[in-house]
């Protein structure tokens, strides 16, 4: 029976990944900064709260990383931990780098120190690409990060690549484009939109304020993306992969789809608030996930519009159940 260790198990991806690995017969352990205080609501929502062994780990503390690796002795490590909000990274740039840049370094060093044979997945990010001018990004597209979050992720990405080359670690970067689900926290724009749409459909009468809705993204379904993470660690050699649907829509279209799924016209309920604009934002992000299809045999089945509709419907059902 294989043992997996998921750093950042309390988040959206951690929960779906834990579920997937349990289904595949893995023993699953996970970390959170304070496992006694964390609610693990996402694991509970998937009904797997009892099946995941949780440990308190702070990635910026080498001892804590070393201890959990020595205790769990994982065959596969999934590194999903770190400050994950682009917006917050402008307000907390140092903490963002500490958790992402120094945290990843500590994990790599701990694996090296223990001489652990574990395979490592690192959650790199499509934000590293910045604005590609509409060009679909591949694994060979140069990085041009545009937020403290993205800059930190770019550094962590190359840390992983460097340790793979320098010390022959089996370490992969998954360059995942936006991937959403009902488990996304509400500060993420997709969840903010569908939550508001569902409340409005239930008669709240509110107006939804959004920042720049002309940004375009490739939104996929998180549940499908965690499968790609797992696949990367089942290959003969470690490599980096772009994971995306290959389709890009604007936030305006995403909003329209989400509202339409609940029988609403978004234009009656949404206003644009320029104070919500970010200091520097990516206009269009576009991906070419051909390598993942070819090498991993992985393809997204849901496109961005499907994701918007499914999330809105799910949100409405939750309200109705209450």
């Amino acid at each position, binding site marked *: 029976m294989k043992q997996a260790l998921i750093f950042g198990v309390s988040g959206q991806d951690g929960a779906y990944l834990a579920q997937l690995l349990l289904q595949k017969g893995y023993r699953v352990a996970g970390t959170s900064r304070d496992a006694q205080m964390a609610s693990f609501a996402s694991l509970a929502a998937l009904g797997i709260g009892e099946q995941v062994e949780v440990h308190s780990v702070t990635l910026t503390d080498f001892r804590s990383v070393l201890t959990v690796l020595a205790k769990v002795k994982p065959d596969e490590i999934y590194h999903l931990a770190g400050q994950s909000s682009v917006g917050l990274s402008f307000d907390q*740039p140092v903490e963002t*780098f500490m958790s992402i840049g*120094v945290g990843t*370094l500590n994990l790599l060093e701990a694996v090296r120190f223990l001489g652990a044979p574990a395979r490592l997945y690192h959650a790199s990010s499509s934000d590293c690409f910045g604005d590609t001018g509409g060009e679909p990004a591949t694994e060979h597209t140069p*990085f041009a*990060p545009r937020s*403290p979050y993205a800059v930190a992720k770019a550094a962590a990405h190359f*840390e992983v690549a*460097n340790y793979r080359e*320098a010390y022959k670690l089996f370490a992969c970067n998954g360059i995942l484009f936006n991937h959403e689900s009902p488990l996304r926290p509400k500060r993420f724009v997709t969840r903010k939109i569908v939550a508001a749409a569902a409340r409005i459909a239930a008669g709240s009468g509110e107006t939804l304020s959004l920042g720049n809705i002309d940004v375009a993204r490739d939104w996929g379904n998180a549940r499908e993306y965690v499968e790609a993470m797992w696949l990367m660690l089942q290959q003969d050699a470690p490599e980096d992969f772009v994971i995306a649907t290959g389709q890009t829509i604007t936030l305006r279209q995403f909003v329209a789809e989400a509202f339409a799924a609940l029988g609403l016209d978004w234009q009656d309920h949404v206003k644009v608030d320029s104070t919500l604009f970010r200091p520097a934002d990516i206009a269009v992000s576009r991906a070419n996930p051909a390598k993942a299809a070819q090498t991993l045999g992985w393809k997204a089945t849901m496109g961005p519009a499907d994701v918007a509709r499914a999330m809105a419907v799910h949100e409405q059902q939750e309200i109705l159940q209450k």
Partner: protein
Amino acid sequence: MKGKVALITGITGQDGAYLAELLLKKGYEVHGIKRRASLFNTQRIDHLYRDPHDIGRKFTLHYGDLSDSTNLIRIIQQVRPDEIYNLAAQSHVKVSFESPEYTADVDALGTLRLLEAVRILGMEKHTRFYQASTSELYGQVVETPQTEKTPFYPRSPYAVAKLYAYWITVNYREAYGMYACNGILFNHESPLRGETFVTRKITRAMARIKLGLQDCLYLGNMSALRDWGHAKDYVEMQWLMLQQDAPDDFVIATGRQHSVRDFVKMAAAELGISIRFEGTGADEKGYDAKTGACLVAVDPRYFRPTEVETLLGDPTKARERLGWVPKITLEEMVTEMVRADLRDAERDALCKSQGFAVFDLNE
């Protein structure tokens, strides 16, 4: 008229010393940050130092560290610089493999702490910022020669930390309208280069071998190709980048490339020694063509877990926009470095012959 005020981090280093001298000549009031240590580390700037009691003194040192935000904020608040030159770093590639976290803290976060200090003090429209970026960013080069548009492929914890510093500088320029520039400087050397960097290690060893103070020089990858210029030329470009109408990033390089082996031959030739290389890889050795003595050998300890084999810069943009023309040739630089190290070696040899102890300054 009050002159401009500059703050230099890394003032005790090679570039810091040359830049401070340049700015003082231009009439700047120069402030430098140095780390506190039990030993003095100010040899390179002693000639610029003025007693704190001197009236009208234009050169001031502050104790500080890029790992301490509060300290940086306080110094910038006191100095209120028109220009900040961030030259401080853990700057040794090999050492970064041994101290990756420290390197990240100082080189990556240190740069962020400085940019944040400027913002926290509300000086982002006042203070211009120079970031010492590096050709090591290109690492496993994806094209040759390298320009401002060449994608980065860092190959060491040092280069990864510098990658963060590069992009966070760009990000603060874009997000907050700061006048912030990256100078992507290719290798630049001088008699002030640190003794553990390969060029200085070579010129110093050759001088000491010449005078019988040392037998053999041990090196790592002698086939590594580098684009070497003179630090004195390069600091002028650092200053010039901050005098433009708009901030931008520039490659500073000579556009010429030589191997470490070539550099050894040139340094030896300057002392009248001709070296014959035999063997390959870790077994390669350099012999004195006259005496047959082995003067150069490979020590695999100096190999890096991931090597950067070749770096060659294309400084077209700097030439066209900044008028960049390096004044000092590689040949002139090697001559200058060897002569300076020979002088030091002669002093050591003299002291030794008179029964005085001298420092060998081993790594």
